[in-house]
């Protein structure tokens, strides 16, 4: 099998994934669908420090077995990172979610995040590990530990050149606990098709499936994710 045939297989696989799963997912109770577009800016300095800024929005488009548009929040985020080794970074981040403007009964949320990231290229594949501790402050305070494993595969050749496509798949395990809630486990699976539009701009469109509280009261969510990422 030559590398070219990946081009034919993967979009086909993506389409099959969407078509097969969508109907079965919709039939489940406790299922919702959301859109989550994001714009992010990465600033890499010649030193070992780097900065990341993000702006995103989340809206429910399907819930309680009916299509319905319901804006959830607008989120601002910032991370400052320091390279601690050849392939590893530690980061400290803050996120602010504006929720109250959409739902009067909800409070805005502040999140403090400590992160460890490790990423490296092995021949064709880029492999990234990410571990996070989060403190979420809103009506309740929640603590969350999460780990994500990501793989990126170029769809033409051995690396992603300008205007070439790539595919990113990842899975993330999350463990949440708080003083007013039962600890819960969640697993997420994502797949996205990306393109290096320009040398420093990447765009991606993907799906993320979240299976939450699977040891208690399971629910599932399907996110349609899109991202524009600018690196300076």
């Amino acid at each position, binding site marked *: 099998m*030559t*590398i*070219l045939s990946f081009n034919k297989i993967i979009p086909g696989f993506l389409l099959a994934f969407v078509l097969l799963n969508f109907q079965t997912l919709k039939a489940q109770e406790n299922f919702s669908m959301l859109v989550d577009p994001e714009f*992010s800016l*990465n600033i*890499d300095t*010649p*030193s*070992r420090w*780097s900065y*990341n800024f*993000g702006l995103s929005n989340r809206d429910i488009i399907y819930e309680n077995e009916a299509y319905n548009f319901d804006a959830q929040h607008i989120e601002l985020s910032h*991370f400052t*990172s320091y*390279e601690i080794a*050849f*392939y590893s*970074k530690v980061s400290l981040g803050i996120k602010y979610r504006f929720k109250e403007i959409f739902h009067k009964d909800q409070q805005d949320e502040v999140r403090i995040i400590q*992160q460890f*990231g490790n*990423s*490296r*290229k092995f*021949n064709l594949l*880029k492999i*990234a590990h*990410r571990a996070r501790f989060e403190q979420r402050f809103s009506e309740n305070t929640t603590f969350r530990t999460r780990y994500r494993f*990501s793989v*990126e595969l170029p769809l*033409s*050749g*051995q*690396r992603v*050149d*300008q205007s*070439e496509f790539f595919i*990113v798949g990842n899975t993330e395990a999350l463990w949440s606990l708080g003083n007013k809630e039962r600890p819960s486990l969640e697993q997420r699976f994502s797949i996205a098709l990306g393109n290096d539009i*320009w*040398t*420093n*701009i*990447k765009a991606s469109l993907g799906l993320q499936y979240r299976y939450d509280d699977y040891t208690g009261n399971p629910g599932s969510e399907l996110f349609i994710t899109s*991202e524009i*990422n*600018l*690196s*300076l």
Partner: protein
Amino acid sequence: MKNLVIFIFFLITAVLQAQEKKQEREEGIERDEMPSSALFLIEKIPEKAKRVRFYSETDGENESYEVKFNFNKSIFSVEFGEKGKLQDVEVTLNDKEVPSTIIENIEAYLQESHERYKIEKIQAQYLPLTPKDSTGLHLLVRSLSFKNNAPSNYEIIVAVKNNGNLNKFEMIFDENGHFQNKREIIRNSYDYLIF
């Protein structure tokens, strides 16, 4: 509003500046897209070779071609110039496949000139230096039994730390493991994968 316009202007300028660099492109191709003069040698790749793949690469001016395959648990890369002229054969080695005196010389250089280092990849490079190598076949045969034939050079990819800065280099060492030259490689940012 005025600030936003200025911000967007700077953003666009930064993007356009990056555009001015020469556009490098590398992609997977089919066997019949390789230059015809390279096919003679491609046919000589052992039948036991696995994952035979073809690539073309351009830096905006010059075009080159590459055949990659796995043979005897090693990755081989045969590179051709624009008209299918053989440039070199590279074999990816693990530490143990490099004779100990040579790896000691390479590491002695790295230790001497850098605070810390991590070798990511070692390749034995076979160059067509003698008239015998000009057809390429002799060179290919030599590289296939790389354990018995010393290469022209060793090419390594190494991440180094100096004065607190982290950099990545491609370095060439001669057949005895003595440093020849180096070229800095841009370290990719993988931030979009970890945020």
